[in-house]
């Protein structure tokens, strides 16, 4: 009987539809409702509405996942109608699905564009969901729609501050402060914004006002104190926190903050006492132990600091800051191996952190200084014999040292300049010899007859080129003397003067060797003559070398500031080649031209050299005094420049 009676009902239930749904819902069989909805054919709008009802039922039965599923189905089926969007937004935000809640609110806003509360809700959901930019957009829109709302302005200001847009945050919070000037919470937020926008005075005034409005409110007092701490008013902050602690001595957070204030005032002992009180109230906060360890470390109580960091790490094994501090303590107390293992953990946890890598490198370096991880014990220092007296070096000794240095530099230069070639320094000799031979050959073949002076073209060019080479080689070689010897200048005994003059001396020696070898060669071939006046030849070479040195010192200084100077200088020496009477004698020139050329000291040097070589050559324009004066002047200028620019010529690594 009962079977037959129930049969129709069951048949009814099997025919899916709103009626069956209602029955199951009333009977509290929610899964059956779900089943009905899954099978029945209804318009989307109706189906969505039913899903909403089911979702609500699930929610109140505490079956959140099922509630969310149903709401999702409803929202996907037909998000348009306000009732559905409204419900979905409500359900999603209550179930912590803030992303979907935000979408539902956006749907609602679409149908009610001027709805300020909707924007505010959407903003809140987006903010919780972590989409700060969209949250800010809605918050600003809400403020625009309802400019008189303090809560909206505070919300927008807080979001903007969180996004680091402090100027805008300050503007909104200022608006909120205007609406509710007596709200300490608003004032505190405004103070924080003022601090972030670089207005510490305003921030301090606001924090004080906030505190004065509700001095007995715990959160207000601590917040205000923190603002004052950040504004570096440590004493005032300490007073406020102390007043708070007088009310409730068991307040761990307040004690922690007091400890920070004491620390900033340099009262490390009191800071430790405060953090000890904080730990007595709440012993399980890792950060408190970390702070205590830092304080102990500052006091040099390394073992206790290490123990404090250990406790912090026991409470919070992932606390990298505690590990980093522990590393420092181990490092400073010489526990290199412990430091090493902590460093390894740090690098494993944060492989991209440069600071950790640096710290680890430091530990590793220290590890290398130790043998088997232990420091070498050198033992007691043996009794020291009485130290020998030391007299500062006299002129003679200083000069001898300089001589040694320049000598060593010259030898080094001969070894390194042609380091790649097997001939080595031989190249330095061969090069100018070949140069003079080819040129002489060229002119000897090109021009017939007798040279202007003497009987051999070879000797004639030789007498022109040797003084010219002394000048050009000396002055040009000094260009890079300083820049290419920068590392040597780190040896205290080596000065810029030494490296410059060493090059000049080497060039002089080389050119003299070339001159002697060539002359001997000419003599062997039967072309040669000995110079008539050896003293005059030597004097002219000395004068042009001094002039070359003067120009060289000037070059070295200019190259120190202008790297391409040597190219300009090389062009100038090439012009000199034609203006110095190497392959002609100035006597061939018209008077006006010779008068101009006579300003060139090299021309005088060559004529001095020639007039000493050939005693019958006695040019009337030759002015030895001019050459000597030019040489001395150049040298003085060069030395003065070198002395003045010495420290700036090279940058030590």
């Amino acid at each position, binding site marked *: 009987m009962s079977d037959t009676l129930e049969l129709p009902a069951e048949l009814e239930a099997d025919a899916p539809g709103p009626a069956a749904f209602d029955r199951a819902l009333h009977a509290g069989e929610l899964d059956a409702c779900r089943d009905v909805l899954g099978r029945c054919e209804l318009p989307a709008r109706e189906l969505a509405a039913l899903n909403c009802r089911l979702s609500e039922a699930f929610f109140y039965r505490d079956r959140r996942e099922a509630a969310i599923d149903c709401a999702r189905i409803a929202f996907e089926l037909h998000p348009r109608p306000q009732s559905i969007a409204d419900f979905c937004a409500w359900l999603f935000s209550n179930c912590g699905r803030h992303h979907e809640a935000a979408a539902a609110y956006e749907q609602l806003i679409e149908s009610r564009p001027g709805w300020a509360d909707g924007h505010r809700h959407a903003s809140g959901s987006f903010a919780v969901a972590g989409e700060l930019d969209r949250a800010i957009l809605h918050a600003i829109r809400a403020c625009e729609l309802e400019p008189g709302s303090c809560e909206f302005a505070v919300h927008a200001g807080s979001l903007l501050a969180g996004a680091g847009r402090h100027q805008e945050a300050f503007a909104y919070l200022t608006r909120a402060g205007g609406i509710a000037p007596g709200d300490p919470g608003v004032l505190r937020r405004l103070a924080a914004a003022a601090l972030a926008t670089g207005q510490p005075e305003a921030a301090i005034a606001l924090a004080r006002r906030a505190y004065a409005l509700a001095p007995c409110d715990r959160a207000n007092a601590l917040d205000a104190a923190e603002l004052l701490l950040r504004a570096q008013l440590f004493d005032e902050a300490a007073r406020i926190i102390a007043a708070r602690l007088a009310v409730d001595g068991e307040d761990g957070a307040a004690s922690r903050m007091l400890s920070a204030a004491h620390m900033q005032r340099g009262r490390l002992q009191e800071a430790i006492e405060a953090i000890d009180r904080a730990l007595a109230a709440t012993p399980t906060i890792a950060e408190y132990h970390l702070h205590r360890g830092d304080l102990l470390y500052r006091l040099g109580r390394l073992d206790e600091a290490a123990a404090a960091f250990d406790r912090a790490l026991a409470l919070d094994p992932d606390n990298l800051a505690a590990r980093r501090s522990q590393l420092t303590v181990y490092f400073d107390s010489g526990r290199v191996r412990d430091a090493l293992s902590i460093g390894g953990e740090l690098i494993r946890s944060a492989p991209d952190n440069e600071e950790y890598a640096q710290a680890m490198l430091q530990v590793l370096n220290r590890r290398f200084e130790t043998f088997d991880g232990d420091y070498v014990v050198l033992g007691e220092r043996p009794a020291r014999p009485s130290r020998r007296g030391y007299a500062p070096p006299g002129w003679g000794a200083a000069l001898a040292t300089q001589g040694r240095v320049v000598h060593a530099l010259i030898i080094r230069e001969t070894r390194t300049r042609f*380091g790649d070639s097997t001939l080595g320094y031989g190249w330095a000799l061969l090069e100018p010899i070949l140069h003079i031979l080819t040129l002489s050959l060229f002119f000897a073949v090109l021009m017939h007859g007798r040279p202007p002076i003497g009987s051999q073209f070879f000797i004639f060019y030789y007498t022109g080129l040797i003084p010219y080479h002394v000048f050009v080689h000396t002055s040009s070689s000094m260009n890079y003397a300083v820049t290419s010897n920068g590392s040597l200048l780190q040896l205290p*005994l080596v000065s810029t003067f030494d490296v410059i003059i060493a090059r000049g001396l080497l060039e002089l020696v080389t050119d003299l060797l070339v001159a002697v070898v060539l002359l001997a060669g000419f003599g062997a071939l039967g072309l040669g003559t000995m110079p008539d006046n050896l003293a005059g030849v030597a004097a002219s070479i000395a004068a042009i070398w001094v002039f070359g040195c003067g120009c060289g010192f000037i070059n070295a200084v200019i190259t120190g500031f202008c790297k391409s100077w040597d190219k300009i200088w090389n062009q100038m020496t090439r012009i000199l080649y034609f203006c110095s009477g190497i392959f002609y004698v100035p006597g061939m020139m018209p008077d006006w031209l010779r008068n101009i050329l006579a300003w060139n000291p090299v021309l005088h040097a060559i004529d001095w050299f020639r007039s000493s070589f050939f005693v019958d050559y006695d040019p009337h324009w030759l002015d030895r005094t001019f050459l000597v004066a030019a040489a001395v002047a150049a040298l003085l200028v060069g030395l003065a420049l070198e002395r003045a620019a010495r420290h700036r010529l090279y940058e030590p690594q």
Partner: protein
Amino acid sequence: MIALEGVAKAYRTRSGRRTVLDNANAVFGAGHNFGILGVNGAGKSTLIRLLAGSEQPDRGIVRRGARVSFPLGFGGTFHGALSGRENAAFLARIYGARRRTMIDYVADFSELDEYFDMPVNTYSAGMRARLAFAACLAIDFDVYLIDEVTEIGDQRFRRKCAEAFRQRMARSDIILATHNPQTLRQYCDRGAVLADGALFLYDDIGAALSRYHRILHERN
């Protein structure tokens, strides 16, 4: 004895001017080993180079009443194209040491063997450091300047260095820049702390260390 008289030294860096010393007056007396303490970037290396004379102060004078070494282990002056032997000979010439004696000592101490006659370019960093260390020990300085002892060679070679140093410390002083308190206590009896352009000398290494720790803490 090395004396600083009104010495000032500053650098232009990318982040602006950095003062290493500002009107520093200090005397590193003979017969004492000094440890120089300073946080990274305080200018310990610069101070060592000023003491060595590798660098000149902007103002003031550094007086040296002794033969002061170049910073120990500093191999920057070696010419890459020259062999270890030629580089050692160069240093012997500069410092007026007997060339034969110096070359023999360096050849023996550096243990470079056949590399001693090959260009320094072909050396590894460790070989270079060994050559530099040997060259510095070969010259008879009154004061050795050491900038942060770092890894040189293998363990056996480091032991040898420590032993050579122990002998040398019987007649020479050292000035050591480091931030390793252990090394400092081991080698030095006096200390100096370099911070924010000021140089403080302490008769007791412990006092210098505690001052250094305070500075470290103020910084954190």
